[in-house]
């Protein structure tokens, strides 16, 4: 997508606005309450700026908007190019919003509050930077920037096993991202040797011509980094540990924003830089997604720790996103993107809820609770709503995303494989698997809810009180979002459409200058269902061009 520049410097303002809180927090010696106030104010300002960004965004223009470009490191062509599209504008909003909520609920942390809030705000810089960077290396810088604050959040303010969890988180993530760095450097080397100058700008790098094998390997390196972050099945074990040990705020940010980075990366960079490889690897991604859905749900079912259960539910939910992404058709793609936001809302809220319990009773064992509905009805009600949103009940946010993904999956597999015998198996696996995931999702969530909220109230639970005013303040906007997205998803879908169309265009424009790709694409073409006519034509055109 092209850039639409803006003179307002809104995005750079946004990215660095958390410094407004960080600097006084570091320099001034303030009490806990003041620190909380400073952080809340700073994150609120960020939120306001992000709202302004959101309002300035014009969904009818198909460009990266509010773009800014600074020379960061001109000798190697590294620029700090910022811009937002329909996806990132929402993710930014989600980020600033959740950070604000987390900093408002600072009271759940008592020790070293200043450090906690500093790390939180640093994390926000990293997250926002990641979402607005259009420059691969700058993206990478912000991507890694998130690692250390999160490491501290888990390691210092975490639970018993925090050192292990924090280290696991960092090592896992760094493993993926350093491979990505190698890939970025390789891509840059290729680009420089072809063009003669260096640039890390997305649009420039996407012009690099690569052999199919190169592209596949580079995609693999990027994808591993992203899939670890998602996390997808065999790379997911850092997540439960990180979630269980992290403080509530850390879990909220982790689930609400950090997990989105993976899919965001695939959408922003993976598909644009390596369209052929994306197309080629899509079935594998789909299978991984389905495995994640089922696996996450089943394993969540047998957890005894509440946070771990919600963590595994994240694995399951993010499996839906991966599945939706890998279908590469409009419905599933839109669904996957919407599901990112949905998951950010519902799972963040669920972590907040677990945090509410943990703050009061200091245990997360499911068996330690029983019959809470009698004691804390408001909590039970809020919990119920978010649980339902998490299992995708219609008219809550969770449903729309899941439905679109499932619908697209049903279509998409046909698109990819056109009903050949072997791939019919794939169709059945993906669709049934995903739908089974919906059932299993209800199973573990409902079962958690029953065990915790229903039954006889266990009087040995001490200190349990219903939601405080501050907590209500945190949950209320999330509740509104749950129903708003559930009832009127078009508001967001319209924005996401822009990203979706652009991403899928990349696939449509698969470069067919190499015989192996030509083969594959023409095979695909013969199997297209009628509803993908547009795509059909585009591929046709490309093939013609290449034949000439």
């Amino acid at each position: 997508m092209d850039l639409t520049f803006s003179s307002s410097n809104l995005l750079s303002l946004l990215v660095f606005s958390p410094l407004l809180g960080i600097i006084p927090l570091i320099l001034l010696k303030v009490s806990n309450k003041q620190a909380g106030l400073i952080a809340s104010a700073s994150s609120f300002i960020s939120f306001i700026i992000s709202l302004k960004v959101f309002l300035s965004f014009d969904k009818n223009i198909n460009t990266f908007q509010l773009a800014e470009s600074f020379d960061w490191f001109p000798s190697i062509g590294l620029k700090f190019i910022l811009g937002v599209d329909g996806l990132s504008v929402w993710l930014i909003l989600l980020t600033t919003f959740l950070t604000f909520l987390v900093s408002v609920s600072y009271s759940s942390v008592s020790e070293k509050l200043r450090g906690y809030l500093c790390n939180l705000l640093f994390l926000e810089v990293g997250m926002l930077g990641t979402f607005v960077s259009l420059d691969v290396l700058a993206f990478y810088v912000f991507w890694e920037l998130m690692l250390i604050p999160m490491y501290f959040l888990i390691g210092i303010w975490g639970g018993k096993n925090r050192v292990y969890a924090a280290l696991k988180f960092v090592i896992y993530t760094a493993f993926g991202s350093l491979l990505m760095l190698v890939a970025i450097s390789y891509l840059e080397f290729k680009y420089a040797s072809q063009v003669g100058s260096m640039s890390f700008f997305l649009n420039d790098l996407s012009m690099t011509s690569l052999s199919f094998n190169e592209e596949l390997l580079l995609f693999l390196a990027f994808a591993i980094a992203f899939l670890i972050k998602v996390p997808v099945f065999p790379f997911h074990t850092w997540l439960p540990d990180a979630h269980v040990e992290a403080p509530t705020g850390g879990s909220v940010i982790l689930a609400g924003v950090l997990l989105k980075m993976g899919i965001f990366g695939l959408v922003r960079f993976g598909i644009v830089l390596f369209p052929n490889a994306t197309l080629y690897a899509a079935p594998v991604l789909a299978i991984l997604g389905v495995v994640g859905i089922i696996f996450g749900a089943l394993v969540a079912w047998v957890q005894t720790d509440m946070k771990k259960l919600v963590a595994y539910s994240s694995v399951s939910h993010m499996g839906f996103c991966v599945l939706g992404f890998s279908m590469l058709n409009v419905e599933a793609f839109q669904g996957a993107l919407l599901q990112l936001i949905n998951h950010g809302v519902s799972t963040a809220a669920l972590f907040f809820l677990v945090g509410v319990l943990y703050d009061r009773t200091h245990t997360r064992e499911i068996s330690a609770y029983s019959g809470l509905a009698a004691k804390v009805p408001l909590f039970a009600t809020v919990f119920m709503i978010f649980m339902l949103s998490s299992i995708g009940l219609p008219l809550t946010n969770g449903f729309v995303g899941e439905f679109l993904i499932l619908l697209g999956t049903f279509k998409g597999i046909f698109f990819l494989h056109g009903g050949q015998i072997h791939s019919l198996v794939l169709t059945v696996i993906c669709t049934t698997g995903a739908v089974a995931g919906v059932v299993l999702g209800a199973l573990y969530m409902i079962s958690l809810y029953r065990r915790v909220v229903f039954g006889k109230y266990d009087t040995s639970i001490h200190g349990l009180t219903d939601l405080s005013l501050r907590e209500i303040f945190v949950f209320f906007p999330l509740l509104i979002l749950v129903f708003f997205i559930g009832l009127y998803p078009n508001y967001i879908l319209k924005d996401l459409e822009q990203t979706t169309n652009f991403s899928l265009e990349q696939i449509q424009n698969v470069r067919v200058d190499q015989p192996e790709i030509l083969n594959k694409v023409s095979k695909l073409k013969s199997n297209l269902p009628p509803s993908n006519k547009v795509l059909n034509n585009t591929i046709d055109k490309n093939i013609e061009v290449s034949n000439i």
Partner: protein
Amino acid sequence: MFSIFKDLILSLPLSSSLTQSEVVLPVGEISNSPLVDSRLLFLPLIPLVGALLSYLVGGKPKVEDDHHSDHDHGSSHDSHAHHGSHDSYKSGMSLSAIVATTASSLSFVLTLLLFTALGSGVSDSIVASAWSWIDAGDLNVDFKFRFDHLSAVMCLVITGIGSLIHLYASGYMAEDPHQPRFFAYLNLFLSAMLILVLGDNLLLTFVGWEGVGLCSYLLIGFWFKEMDNAKAGQKAFIVNRIGDAGFLLGMFTLFYYTGSLSPSDILAKVHNMPALAIEVAAILLLIGAAGKSAQIPLYIWLPDAMAGPTPVSALIHAATMVTSGVYMVARLAGLFSAAPHALLLVSIIGTLTAFIAATIALVQNDIKKVLAYSTVSQLGFMFMAIGAGAYSVGLYHVVTHAFFKALLFMAAGSVIVGCHHEQDMRKFGGLFKYMKFTGISYIAGTYAISGLPYGSGFFSKDSVLWATYSSTGLASTIEVSNGIFLNQALWGVGILTAALTAFYMTRSLFLTFFGTYRGHGTPHETSFNMVFPLLVLSVPSLIFSFLYGDTLLTYLAHWTRSDFLGGHHALLENHTYHQLETISMWVALISAGLSGLIYTFAKGLPAKISSLLSPIYKLLLGKWYVDELYNLVIVLPLRGISRVFFILFDRILIDGLLVTGSSVVVDVAGTTLKKIHSGTMKSSLSLMFSLFVFIILFWVIL
């Protein structure tokens, strides 16, 4: 004897005039463009607002104290009983009950208004669209409702019977401290049910579909302090979700081939679909219907659902929600007609369900359980009709069933309240003299459901059986044994089931209302707002079919575009029909009579029979051990697999082998290398030099 009845019927002026009333049906041209009426939007909205209001006017939810909770309210259910015995005649309605009942009555009124508008004949449907809901790619779904003749019938049933049940509930729940929550859920249910029925596309239907599932879940577990109730709710939700998954897949298949989710579009394009796809879509949708309408193999949740308060059982688990499967199939009649194999499957499943549930009902002692299995059995009848392609008959049975089953449940509820929350029929007996009105209504209900002559059930059940018998579907081509075709065999099972129905219903009637009282305390009649709905519903249970049956049937047949057009009267000329009807009438009469005799004069007989046939008795008492089977075959293995997954993959393979493994590799490499770096200078020098020589050698080799 039958001929007397026949003459009687034919001589009735009323019925003959009604026979002619078929002309009411539109014969001329009706404009295809639907009427836009935004009042329609309020139909589901009113109960929704009612739900919110009734929750809000209820005040702050009651919070239990840390210290007193265990002896004060062991369980809400008990406390309810406890309070109930003090002043059971208290008939004042709580504020939330009033709000909720008003909301539901208002929507009934609105339904009537809309029905009238529809009846004016300007158009065959009324639509109202709120906003565009989901727009993504090829999928464009609006929040759009359509009120046509089919949904009109359902809406009338839902809001009409719903209002009565609301009223009834205001009495039944009078002592419960959590009334606001209860009425909010109940109204929410109405709203969801109306969305289900009115939705102009399958997705919106699905919204209602899941919505009613949710309300059912919430209401079954309403007395959540009893873990069993919560578990029953959970079971209902999960089993329904399995059905919903089928619904979803069916929806996707249809969308894939027709590019639309609106029933009218789909039906218009059905003939373009490959035959296999139609069958697959139909079967998938049927899985959904089986989940909601409690058919084999997904019926197991419904009997457990009786854990909820009785008005819930009456409204959700008898009259409305459980019939939505039938409604959905009727909506997509054109699709199902094109899927003969799916239909065959439906008939078999329906028949089996009807039969098995009836056998289980025979031996139940809990009055609500009897009714629950009876509901499953009746739903089986409805599916039989659908399987035969007679969607109108299925719906017809839905309507009559709604009358008499709601009546029976409410009467049972009244009995339960009257007997201080006792549900075991062995502790009842002779209640008729204490609870005259309840007794009368129960008798009316039993009369109707047993298929005794000219009750509501008589006509609808006969139509079902006839539809099965005369079906020209796939079943009629399969020969079971010499000269007997499958449809005839199914009819046979149906007749047998009808006999069983008459038997167990009469049994429950006699055990409850006649003989001598076997319980504790003094039973009493319940309050007016509970008795009034009973009496109201008794009337249609008895005479609705007789008066309006044919009209309704013809009407439905027309709007489901189904080819089964024969009403009762039209068929009287048919000799076979005549014979079959006679048989079924006598079967029901004899069965009911036998039951009545046994439970009045030979009370020891059932025990003797059961000890004689003890394996069968045990099988029935154990409900065919389906729950246990599912637990053994599905739940336990799944849980086992989950544990294995968790331990094998996460703990052992990934965390153990990969994560810890790689760190162990690094560690072992480190300790090994560390040994080489032992610290004396000589060894260091040797190491350095030998590696240098090695490198030189390496270079030479290269």
